[in-house]
């Protein structure tokens, strides 16, 4: 095909058709890479405990031990969490997610008690946007926080996972939801086991 033929109307229409045809394998490649794309999605955490200031480390310690503190100290810690900037709250959440040793089971409860909207949403964000391990850790956070809203939160996440047909995520969330329901029934004074 000569240059003049390419410049003609027929040539240009052929070239345009080739553009469209070329997009078919490109689009198909995107679809075929779906699993890889899904696996590549994860949250990136920037919190580094070694870089935290002494006051931050002290606050983390107080949060974990606040159950054993007096009521006055406990409310001070709660106020301190509430007054933190969002980026500092984010760092505290990330630190709990990354640093598993020592295990700090009381921290999620204290954080959610202080600022339920932020921390529960943050954990839900990890479930939606994180990889499998991050999702598991976020679900652990939601379970440990023992908030009255955590069943609603888990139910919504389960609906989301079912709607998007994310089987692995749905299984993880459903398991957490079942555990929370059982726990709620056991602690509910009007639950089936408690009614004489």
């Amino acid at each position, binding site marked *: 095909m000569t*240059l003049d033929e*390419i*410049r003609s*109307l027929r040539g*240009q229409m052929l*070239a*345009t058709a080739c*553009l*469209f045809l070329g*997009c*078919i394998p*490109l*689009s*198909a490649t*995107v*679809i075929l890479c*779906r699993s890889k*794309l*899904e696996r590549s*999605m994860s*949250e*990136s955490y*920037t919190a580094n405990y070694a*870089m935290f200031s002494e006051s931050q480390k002290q606050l983390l310690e107080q949060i974990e031990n606040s159950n054993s503190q007096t009521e006055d100290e406990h409310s001070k810690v709660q106020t301190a969490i509430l007054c933190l900037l969002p*980026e500092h709250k984010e760092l505290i959440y990330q630190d709990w997610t990354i640093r598993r040793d020592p295990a700090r089971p009381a921290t999620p409860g204290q954080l959610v008690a202080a600022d339920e909207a932020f921390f529960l949403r943050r954990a*839900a*964000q990890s479930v*939606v*946007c994180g990889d499998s391990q991050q999702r598991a850790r976020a679900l652990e956070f939601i379970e440990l926080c023992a908030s009255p809203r955590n069943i609603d939160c888990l139910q919504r996440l389960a609906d*989301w996972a079912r*709607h*998007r*047909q*994310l089987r692995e995520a749905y299984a993880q969330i459903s398991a957490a939801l079942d555990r929370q329901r059982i726990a709620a029934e056991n602690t509910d004074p009007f639950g089936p086991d408690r009614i004489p």
Partner: protein
Amino acid sequence: MDCDASSGGVLDRTLERVGVDPRMYRALVKAYLLIDFRNQQFGRATSTSGPREILTPLFTVTGQNLLIGLFVSVGLFARVDCFFFALVMLCVSMLVTASSVIVEFNEIVLDPDDLTIVGHQPVPVRTYSAARVTNLMAYVLLTIAALNFCPAIVGAGLRDATWTFTLWYSAAALISNLVVAGGIILVYHAVLREHPTTQTRDLLAWVQTGAMLLLGYGAQLVIRDPRQSLQMLAYELPQWVKSTPPGWMAQLAIMTGVEARGLGILVAGMVISGAIWTLVVVRLSASYAMMEPGRSAWSGFLPPLTAPGELGGRLLRWISPPGPERTAWWLCRTFLQRDYNLKMRCWTSMAIVMAAIAMGWMTGKLSDPFLPNSDPVFTLACLYLMTMPLPQIMHNLNFSKDHQASWVLQIAPIANRAAFVGGLRKAVLCHFMVPMLLFLFVVLTTIWRQPIHAAGCTLAAALVVLGVSWAASAVVLKSTPFAAPLARGESFGPIALFASVVGTIAAGVGLLHFFLLKVPYGFFMHLILLSVAVLVTRFFVQRSLSSHTLLSGQRSSGMISGVET
């Protein structure tokens, strides 16, 4: 032209039945398609292609639309659900279709040049209208197809989608885009009763180019966004979105079987789309019948010039002394106001700086270099990236759409070349770099909450910008400004070497800044070193510029032969 009127197909018989001459119709449609490929406003406005290029403007625009569809699809794929995917893709395609129709309004809807080409031929109005509307539909359909081709395929690969997505999404995209395109034509033609102005169309052509840049950088942001805003928006999408027209169309697109609600939306969309396009055809046919020579032509709006004997306002009197420097300043400002191509080419060069600052802001990487334990690499990159657009902006001053009038400047009695070039340099600095430095200062102050730190960093960037502006005025502004038409590859090719030298120097200055921050009083040493470097550059550049008379013996490629003889 091969126009076989004797074929006698179904189409011909239908055309004859509605009073359209099939032979003339075919000839006109073929001619219009050819014109579409060669003579697009987008191509002219952005100087990306000419009639003799192999890749014609329409081919380029189609490719660009396909890329927009593909890039946005990839950005959304595997991150969001089927409904959100369809919603975003439909909104993007409607926006681009609307801007395309406005940009190409003259070529595809009402072209006053048709009168000089077709006016003397015995073409019935109905035939002419049919050919024009067919051409319009072909263009709109090509745009819609290019924008939605990739999303229709990629969307079917989403986990919660089925193969029917391709079918229903295509129907939704066709209806919604036809409604938007028809609505735009009606608004401009029936309500406003005028064409979009030249500036609007040029600006929108650049908006399309800007959209490409935005999509490129935006995709980076989506991938790097630590708050995962896109996925969370899809997760927490408000319910009212489903009650908007794009929401209805997205619901149609995700329909998996035959559902009453989806079919209702489909039928309603088809009826509305059909009604709008019937109105478009009726209105346009009436307009074609009323067209008179010159009636539809319009002249470009030019900003008024200052009174004779007076150049510029108070600001100019304060910044620039009278004589060649003020003349050059005024000339540069006037061209930047008048010539949209020139202005948008210059602002496009600034896109990389704006994108870097925005990306740093949104990803939280613009950390304060004065704080201990901070990671200042991205901040320093943003500071010294400010110099990168300068060579290209200065180089752009060599070109203009009014290049044929450059003989006036060639014969003007301007002896002091250094002052003249200095005026151009100051105009560029005040027009582009000062606002950008102020923007940088505001962003850094907002993020760091330390105005002194932000001012220090901005001052360092300003010194480097000043030095590079002196160097660029000597290296790039060698010939008569605004004297050449922009040719393919000329917008960057000749200054590629200089631009890479500037980039290397900027990187070196950034490294120096980085290491000097670790030394006590290192930042002040850095500022002193930069100031000395700027003064030395200024001295040599002024000496170099003063040693030549203005523009002597140098002609640009745009010098018109008539003047030379």
